[in-house]
């Protein structure tokens, strides 16, 4: 038991638990935080998927009766919001959190308590958002069409319903009374803060905490993508923060930013939203591109083709991503000059993306391909992302986009890049790094079943949307009449969606079974290239027993393999003893290791946002303002207590 430092140093005793739920609440260990992000994100994935299935039941045939219009609006809004903000972004955070220190040779991130804070803000933000189902009201709709003349939607419809993009003034106070959109605006604001804090943390970590010899151009591509994503978050989140403040003020304080009747500007919202929204979609895809850049070389037993080009292309995509936002606004009345400029800019983004695709192909060319589950998902990623990218490029042709926009053709595009792209990449990563988490391998049989079900289901679901859209099926509309003849393909789409759902069940079965009874992985089960595989599985608490000394890109690979004259890998005679040596020093660190001490403050600071959120929405009620003040006070005192608390208690040591 460690001796705490001088008694005046902290107000409360530092938490000391190493197991049990308290250890999770107070943890500052990046691995545990990553795991919490991962499981939470997955729960939201299920919720978002259920929302999708309900939508598909409604649209399976013409004149659907499963949902009414208000419920439909709520379901498609929550599906999008959940998948973007509560699944893909947090699961990205899960990967970044778990892997970043491991891949650069560090013990933790630069600011471990801030890291925990990001998680707690995220989870409380997500809970706040979803509590709109319970507490949110939609109020009388303006010119509404609720069945039976109802003035408030059913519980299924009483949640955020303005689309994930909350276009103004529709989602403003004049046309959306009730509280659900306040939950939306404030909830997103809270979530954005979590990501911003993470971004600062990861940038500081990547720039400053790399192991000896880990120069920037020796970092794994996944870490480069983490860095680009962090910068995208850093510069795009403040913009949406301002926009969300503006809409919250419109709704709560009577400001007139978006009230077109009194001089406000509806298009301004679109600019501000998409200035964030476009970098956001690169935030969603770049982590998966990073994952695939790790798995393809390992399972082709070849180095990544053109590493500098892939890195540069990733940075270029990030940079250019800030210059194309108005391609979401081609039909909103911006000038022809603006449309041409943004159309051109959008076309240029295809170039660095293409560079990556060709480099991935080049990696696999003449490689010794191993068709493991992670490899299947990586290959699926490349194929499906190309399809999604091609439809994306067709949007960049402005007159064509006038036809495509607001139809299912667009829905097809972004689901191919987000599902076929981001989600396939995520699953590749989950299967690939599962051994690091658990020390076991996932079942290959179940994995392959998962892949094929998901691949078939995904194409059945989103493929037909291309021609449905071009035939004129409009987005965000709760039903379609029989005369349009959309029914057959919509039924195919719905069947596809349920096939996807079944594949997820297979995955969940695989995960739970393999965690307990999967084949033991041992050290370096994939014969991989990067240094996170140079430590035992599951990852020890201290990560590296000895701080790594990096000599090259793919340092771990070069410790095991040399190259012959043809450039083919030749296993070094001392490879096995190297592996054994790294295993031993990973399990038995030779010197005492200081780890950051757990802390209560991130949890309480995160929880305070719940009080602030509810306080803002209900500030006109008697208890609202006191709750708001309580939230602010709790936040401030948590932060001040935190600033008085040292990062590490003296004499806190961890031994094997």
């Amino acid at each position: 038991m460690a001796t705490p430092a001088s008694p005046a140093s902290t107000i409360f005793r530092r938490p000391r638990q190493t197991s049990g739920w308290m250890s999770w609440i107070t943890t500052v260990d990046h691995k545990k935080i990553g795991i919490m992000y991962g499981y939470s994100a997955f729960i939201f994935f299920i919720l978002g998927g259920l929302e999708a299935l309900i939508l598909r039941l409604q649209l399976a045939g013409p004149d659907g009766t499963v949902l009414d219009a208000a419920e439909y609006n709520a379901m498609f809004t929550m599906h999008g919001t959940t998948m973007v903000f509560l699944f893909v972004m947090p699961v990205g955070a899960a990967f970044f959190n778990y892997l970043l220190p491991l891949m650069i040779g560090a013990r933790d991130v630069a600011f471990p308590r801030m890291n925990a804070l990001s998680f707690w803000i995220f989870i409380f933000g997500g809970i706040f958002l979803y509590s709109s189902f319970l507490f949110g009201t939609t109020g009388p709709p303006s010119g509404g069409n609720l069945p039976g003349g109802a003035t408030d939607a059913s519980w299924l419809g009483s949640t955020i319903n303005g689309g994930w993009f909350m276009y103004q003034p529709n989602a403003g106070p004049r046309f959306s009374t009730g509280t659900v959109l306040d939950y939306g605006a404030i909830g997103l604001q809270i979530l954005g803060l979590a990501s911003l804090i993470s971004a600062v943390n990861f940038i500081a970590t990547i720039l400053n905490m790399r192991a000896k010899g880990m120069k920037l151009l020796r970092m794994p591509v996944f870490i480069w993508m983490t860095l680009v994503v962090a910068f995208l978050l850093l510069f795009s989140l403040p913009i949406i923060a301002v926009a969300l403040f503006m809409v919250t003020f419109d709704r709560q304080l009577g400001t007139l930013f978006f009230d077109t009747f009194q001089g406000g500007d509806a298009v301004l919202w679109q600019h501000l939203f998409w200035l964030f929204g476009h970098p956001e979609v690169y935030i969603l895809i770049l982590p998966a591109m990073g994952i695939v850049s790790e798995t393809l070389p390992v399972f082709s037993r070849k180095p990544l083709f053109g590493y500098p080009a892939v890195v540069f292309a990733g940075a270029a995509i990030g940079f250019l991503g800030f210059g194309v936002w108005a391609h979401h606004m081609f039909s909103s009345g911006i000038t022809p000059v603006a449309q041409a400029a943004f159309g051109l800019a959008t076309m240029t983004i295809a170039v660095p993306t293409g560079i990556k695709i060709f480099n991935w192909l080049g990696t696999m060319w003449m490689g010794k391909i191993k068709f493991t589950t992670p490899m299947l998902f990586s290959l699926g990623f490349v194929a499906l992302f190309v399809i999604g990218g091609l439809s994306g490029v067709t949007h960049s042709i402005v007159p064509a986009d006038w036809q495509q926009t607001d139809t299912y053709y667009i829905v097809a595009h972004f689901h191919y890049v987000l599902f076929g792209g981001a989600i396939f990449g995520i699953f590749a990563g989950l299967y690939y790094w599962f051994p690091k988490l658990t020390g076991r391998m996932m079942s290959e049989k179940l994995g392959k079943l998962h892949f094929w079900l998901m691949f078939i289901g995904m194409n059945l679901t989103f493929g037909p949307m291309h021609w449905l859209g071009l035939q004129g099926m409009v987005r965000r509309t709760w039903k379609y009449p029989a005369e349009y003849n959309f029914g057959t393909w919509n039924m195919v789409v719905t069947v596809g969606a349920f096939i996807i759902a079944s594949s997820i069940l297979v995955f969940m079965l695989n995960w739970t079974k393999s965690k307990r009874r999967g084949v033991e992985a041992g050290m370096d089960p994939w014969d991989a290239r990067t240094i996170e595989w140079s430590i035992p599985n599951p990852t020890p608490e201290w990560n590296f027993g000895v701080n790594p000394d990096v000599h090259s890109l793919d340092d771990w690979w070069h410790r095991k393999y040399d190259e012959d004259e043809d450039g083919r890998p030749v296993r070094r005679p001392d490879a096995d003893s190297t592996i054994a040596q790294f295993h031993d020093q990973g399990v038995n660190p030779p010197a005492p290791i200081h780890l950051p001490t757990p802390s209560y403050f991130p949890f309480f600071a995160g929880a305070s946002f719940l009080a602030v959120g509810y306080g803002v929405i209900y500030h006109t009620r008697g208890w609202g303002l006191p709750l708001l003040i309580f939230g602010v006070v709790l936040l401030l005192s948590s932060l001040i207590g935190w600033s008085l608390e040292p990062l590490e208690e003296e004499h806190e040591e961890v031994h094997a």
Partner: protein
Amino acid sequence: MAGAQTKAHPSPKQYVQIAVLLAVLTAVEVALYYIEEAGVSEIVVYPTLIILAILKFVIVVAFYMHTRYEKGIISRFFTVGFVGALMLYTVVLGTFGVLSAIGG
């Protein structure tokens, strides 16, 4: 920590001199405002005001925020953030026709 800074800092006296300079620049700005009210053309006054603001801005950043004495990466973060914001929002205002309105 202190070790990161390798060049000598200004002395307190120099800091005060910089503050005096900043105060003078502010006084000039205010004077310009009244000069413009008195009828001098905006084309003369507004660019000058902007230049003065930039000057004050750069002085605070370089000397008070120490960027002049820090490693280059700090200035790069600052410049990227600032220039990026400037460019992005100029484009936004441009799409609203605000820039042509200001120029006109």
